[in-house]
């Protein structure tokens, strides 16, 4: 190992750092540095008047979370949202992918159409849905046409979060569908042929071949879904004009963090503590998911 400091190796190391330098700069200044800074913030009372002033308060910010009713409401809303949206979008994505993969005509057309929501920004989609959710908008008109009850989608605290759930299942499922589609290419045809010889119909083939073979991908899709849904923000913000209303019904954890950090005065340290709490919740949720699916391969 004497060659360790040979000129060629030194030069290669220099080149390595040079190639890494832009990434290093951003990582240190905007990722690693901020994480340490966030830890510091979460243990301080932060005031933003003129300059930034800090007062060390130890675990007070974290303790405050337990007494904060809005934090509880936000966590409950987010939790409901995750528990409903993740399974729905996963199952929908799987069904769509399997249908697309059956080799019917027009597959390409359907694929392009299904992908539209993934391309469109959350701001645009939210506005389009707000327009459709209007009191005498398209959705209520369609509902009353087929004799179903109509709702005050955006004004009624009982349904506002559901309105966001429907919208987001619709807009995220196609993205996961594409991941499933790619994975379906790897399921060996011989399995389906063997099942056909045994007289299995399409539904049996789906349940006993497609679903089990896609398990590692499903695990990945669910974890991505959990991470994404816990961070719901854009839609709630635009839907409620930043308030999380009506009556806190669309208040999510990230929206609450945003409000404490940038809208209220003197609660930035508390917001940082909330952000860590959220990171912890996401971590625990993904760990639980992994335990359940017993799948080690992907992450």
């Amino acid at each position: 190992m004497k060659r360790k400091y040979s000129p060629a190796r030194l030069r290669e190391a220099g080149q390595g750092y040079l190639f890494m330098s832009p990434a290093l700069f951003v990582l240190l200044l905007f990722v690693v540095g901020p994480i340490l800074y966030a830890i510091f913030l979460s243990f301080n009372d932060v005031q933003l008047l003129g300059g930034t002033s800090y007062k060390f308060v130890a675990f007070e910010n974290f303790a405050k979370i337990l007494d904060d009713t809005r934090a509880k409401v936000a966590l409950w809303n987010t939790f409901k949202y995750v528990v409903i949206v993740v399974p729905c979008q996963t199952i929908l994505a799987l069904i769509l992918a399997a249908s697309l993969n059956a080799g019917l005509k027009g597959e390409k057309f359907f694929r392009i159409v299904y992908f539209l929501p993934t391309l469109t920004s959350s701001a645009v989609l939210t506005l389009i849905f707000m327009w459709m959710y209007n009191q005498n908008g398209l959705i209520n008109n369609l509902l009353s046409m087929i004799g179903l009850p109509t709702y005050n989608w955006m004004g009624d605290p009982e349904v506002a979060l559901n309105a966001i759930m429907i919208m987001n299942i619709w807009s995220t499922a196609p993205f996961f569908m594409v991941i499933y589609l790619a994975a379906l290419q790897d399921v060996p045809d011989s399995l389906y042929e063997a099942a056909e010889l045994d007289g299995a119909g399409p539904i049996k083939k789906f349940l006993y071949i497609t679903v089990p073979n896609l398990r590692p991908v499903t695990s990945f899709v669910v974890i991505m879904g959990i991470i994404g849904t816990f961070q719901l923000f854009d839609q709630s913000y635009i839907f409620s004009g930043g308030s999380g209303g009506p009556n806190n019904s669309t208040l999510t954890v990230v929206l609450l963090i945003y409000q404490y950090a940038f809208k209220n005065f003197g609660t930035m340290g508390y917001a940082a503590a909330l952000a860590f709490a959220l990171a912890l919740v996401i971590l625990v949720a993904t760990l639980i998911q992994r335990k359940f699916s017993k799948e080690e391969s992907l992450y």
Partner: protein
Amino acid sequence: MKKRNIGRNILYVILVGYAIITLIPFLWALSSSFKTLEEIVSGSMNFIPKDFTFDNYKTIFVEQELFPRWLFNSVFIATVATALNLIFNSMAGYALARLSFPGKKALFVTILAVLMIPAQVTMIPNYLILKELGWLNSYQGMIAPSMINATFIFMMRQFFINFPKELEEAASIDGLNRFGIFFKVVLPLARPALAAQTIFVFMGLWNDFMRPLIVLSDPNLFTLPLGLNTFKGQYISYWNYIMAASMVFTLPVLLIYAFFNKYFIKGISFTGGK
């Protein structure tokens, strides 16, 4: 054989049904953007406007004089940041795949760890750091933090690990140095990976809502999502204008998609943990 036909029909019902569900919001928005205000308010359900009009599009560009500005800001920030991402992510991915230097492993682990940390944790300190730098309300405040992307550094590393070494060796015999090899030989051959990256990074930046919301407060510097949100606040219930603005905003991404369609699906399976 009859059974198979039934199965096929059920599949078509699923596919067509879902295509309709996907398309209705877009068609409805598109049709609303060509309707007059009276028709919007009347709550009619026609998908074809009674009085077809371009006025909404004209109005949003004339009345809201900042609209072209927002469009420019979005295009500028997304384009510059995407270009920087392509270069910097590839450079970092190449170094991690091909060059040996002390601390490489630690760096790679750090980049993987970064992927797991929710953006909300770094959001607040990022705001304070940009404030210290005087970069709030500036293009660099939007671009600098987003000019690399851990996901795509990782993806490029995977790409370069499988890249044939012989090509580089041949180039170095021809007298090219490391940078020459990278920019003249390696990068041009990485085009498929770069194309996939372009779409995802551009889309992410173009559609981002949270960062501009935090970094930008001067309406002159707003990007389109933020402008759109403000616009909605000013023109509540003028859904014809809001829908026209939404359509203008959606078009560029659709064009890019049409252009790069081929690489898109590939890119997803790339990022999809494969």
